């Protein structure tokens, strides 16, 4: 089946996740071979996901881990102690 661009866009997310069936995958790939617009959309979306998964993009507050383990240490030592203080 020949796919139009809009059809490809609808499945782009599942295509990236590898969850489209073999037939649809083949149709999408055939479309991508000649469609520059869809190829660019696919590449840009993929790159956004790479950037998202990069730890430097979404950083944790400085000192988060230390504070978390300090709090945890207090809880291990004195269960519910923080609650009582409040």
């Amino acid at each position, binding site marked *: 089946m020949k796919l139009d661009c*809009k059809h490809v*866009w*609808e499945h*782009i*997310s*599942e295509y*990236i*996740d590898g*969850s489209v069936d073999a037939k649809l995958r083949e149709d999408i790939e055939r479309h991508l071979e000649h469609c*520059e*617009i869809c*190829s*660019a*959309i696919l*590449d*840009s*979306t993929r*790159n*956004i*996901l*790479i*950037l*998202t*998964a*990069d*730890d*430097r*993009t*979404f950083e*944790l*507050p400085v000192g*988060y*881990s230390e*504070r*978390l*383990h300090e*709090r*945890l*240490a207090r*809880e*291990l030592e004195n*269960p519910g102690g*923080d609650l009582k203080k409040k």
Partner: protein
Amino acid sequence: MRTTETNEAGLIARIVAGEKELFHELIRPYERMVYLTLFAIVKNESEAEDGAQEAVISAYRHLASFRGDAKFSTWLVTIAINEGRKRLRKAKTAAEESIEEKEEAHEGDYSPAPLTDWREIPLEALERKELREALRVAVRDLPDIYRQVFTLRDLEELNVEETAQALGINPGAVKVRLHRARMMLQKRLVPYLKTTAPARRLFFGRAL
């Protein structure tokens, strides 16, 4: 992966049996996940950090009830989500919540934005700070239901089933929300991508 889970099961058993100090070790690989989950819900750094601490303490207190039929990570992320929702409820009125629920029924335009010359953009462009910042802002601005699914799937890399389980929605809804979230981000970030590579083909240039 399997070894991680086996080690984890062993760790959990020892903690429950009394070696409670080991909980530090158990939680360490998931600290980031817990924070990001909270942040996706409350959208505020200090509130997310407080919530992350509460979620971790709560996981410690309830560890004996962890049955191992779900993965520890999924169990933990569920606790984090509940903590986030609890905090949100405190801050939000019931009226605002019902607006949020309607969002999914909204028939919006979730198509991506066409762009050309993306292939010409070198991978180094992804290193640019402003692109990261633009992505952070774009994710923060996503409607809540989309941001939460996107965070669990694409930031924390949970699979569809785990995400559905943690959020209490069906896998179909996870896929739909994820697709829309990704397309909204793609559309939003196109201007940042465009500036790095001027369109050379006028025909496509117009389509932008």
